[in-house]
């Protein structure tokens, strides 16, 4: 399909979308823990042997873990990292940090969001509530400023965080990149406003007319989106409400260190059914 002249968005295969991510890029990932993450896209980054990526996400889990396992990550900026459910810590991520193979910038979820808000708002930093008394402030050399309007209160300010690319997995998108999600949007809205480029991976394409009937349901307008790809079941082994639940046995298999990563990648839905254009 040729680029849509009005927006520059193109519907492309998942492999082509991943190919647009250069080594060393700063990539923000949507979703939260095992829910509606762009996991098919993440696995495609691994298949293409990307290196030195910076991963930005408030609550990554499977995604950052598998990227660390495959050696794709140099740096993480994250709030809380875990597999969740009953799975506990993310083992390959944990080892990567403990052995200092990746650099971590530890945030609270909302300080990371404040940095993203600064980027989205076009300002160099953003105040955030709380943080008082936390060692995270000194660790990250965050500044505190006194209310210039004289309340006497102090507020912590977080420097702008501008990802090169935000990638979100959505329930449906139009060929122009307009994207809708069901259930919570997690942090996807602010990620798509903060990043330089936005890639949308959709469970399915929908007719533009259906979006035009209910434009208020659209989370991301297509003009912000540079590329769209279709990957049914692409949030596997996580959930994509209301289509499918977490595949807990598959997560257990993934966490079994005796099983090779390649077997997991081959089992993924996008490997069985290459993403359609």
């Amino acid at each position: 399909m040729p680029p849509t002249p009005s927006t520059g968005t193109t519907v492309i295969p998942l492999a082509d979308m991943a190919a647009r991510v250069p080594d060393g890029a700063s990539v923000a990932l949507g979703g939260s823990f095992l829910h509606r993450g762009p996991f098919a896209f993440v696995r495609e980054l691994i298949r293409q042997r990307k290196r030195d990526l910076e991963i930005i996400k408030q609550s990554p889990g499977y995604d950052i873990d598998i990227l660390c396992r495959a050696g794709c990550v140099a740096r993480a900026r994250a709030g809380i990292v875990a597999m969740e459910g009953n799975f506990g810590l993310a083992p390959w991520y944990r080892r990567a940090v403990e052995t200092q193979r990746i650099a971590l910038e530890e945030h609270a979820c909302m300080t990371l969001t404040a940095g993203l808000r600064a980027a989205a708002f076009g300002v160099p930093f953003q105040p955030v509530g709380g943080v008082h008394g936390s060692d995270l402030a000194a660790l990250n050399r965050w500044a505190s400023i006194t209310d210039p309007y004289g309340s006497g209160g102090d507020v912590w300010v977080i420097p702008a965080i501008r990802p090169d690319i935000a990638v979100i997995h959505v329930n449906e998108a139009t060929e122009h990149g307009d994207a809708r999600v069901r259930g919570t949007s997690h942090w996807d809205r602010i990620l798509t406003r903060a990043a330089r480029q936005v890639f949308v991976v959709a469970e399915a394409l929908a007719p533009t007319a259906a979006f035009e009937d209910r434009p208020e349901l659209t989370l991301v307008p297509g003009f912000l989106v540079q590329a769209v790809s279709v990957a049914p079941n692409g949030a596997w082994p996580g959930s994509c409400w209301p289509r499918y639940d977490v595949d807990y046995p598959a997560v257990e298999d993934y966490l079994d260190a005796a099983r090779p990563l390649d077997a997991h990648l081959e089992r993924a839905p996008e490997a069985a059914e290459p993403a359609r254009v």
Partner: protein
Amino acid sequence: MSERWSGFSYIVTNLARFVRPGEVTFSGVNSTPPMLACLLAKRAYDFDFVYLNVAGGVQPRPSKIPLSSSDPVLAQGSAAIFANEDFYDLCTRGGMDLCFLGAAQIDGHGRTNVSVIGDWHRPKVRLPGGGGGAVMLPTARRAVTWRTEHSTRTLVDRLDFVTAAGPLHGVATPIAVFVERGGRLALQSWHPQVSLAEVRRRTGFAFDAAGAGPTPFPAAREAAALRCLDPDGRFERDANVSID
């Protein structure tokens, strides 16, 4: 009433007892006990309260109880989605009455560490990290945490790292309930199967126990609600909590 009370039921029931009528109450990611506590409070208590959760749920009626406390089923039956930025902003502007937050280590000042065991730069154990705490603990009207292990490793005199300062309003462990008093955690009550001396021996920080006594056993409705939420004991088994 049985004379035995499992550590798992003790934690969930006592977390539920922090819930107050009419208040806005929140449960987050990686937070199975508070999720169960909020759902228990909805079933067991006569009062209403506004239950929000990290799945965007607002007064949800989930059709099943998920393993993941951020599962989207926790927004089922909601008339609105209140997504992450919304509930954090609500909290920082003072609108969150009760917020449940996780912790690995807790000190006597009611501060928490969820970042690291050992030196931050040379971690012995890299823990999940900041999460909600640093922003929600100081800004929620009351923040409450839990630990499934009550020991001098988890309830410490000195945190390896201060992820979030508060102070906490309350802590529930398998054998004790602490509440904040004058900027310190004080013992409110202890598990009726253990002694005050045992709580002291297994706690790494000094605490005031004035007025504390054995925790009241679950009321019939509390016990029935937990059985209803965990009919085959899956959550109880997965939590693997011991009072010893």
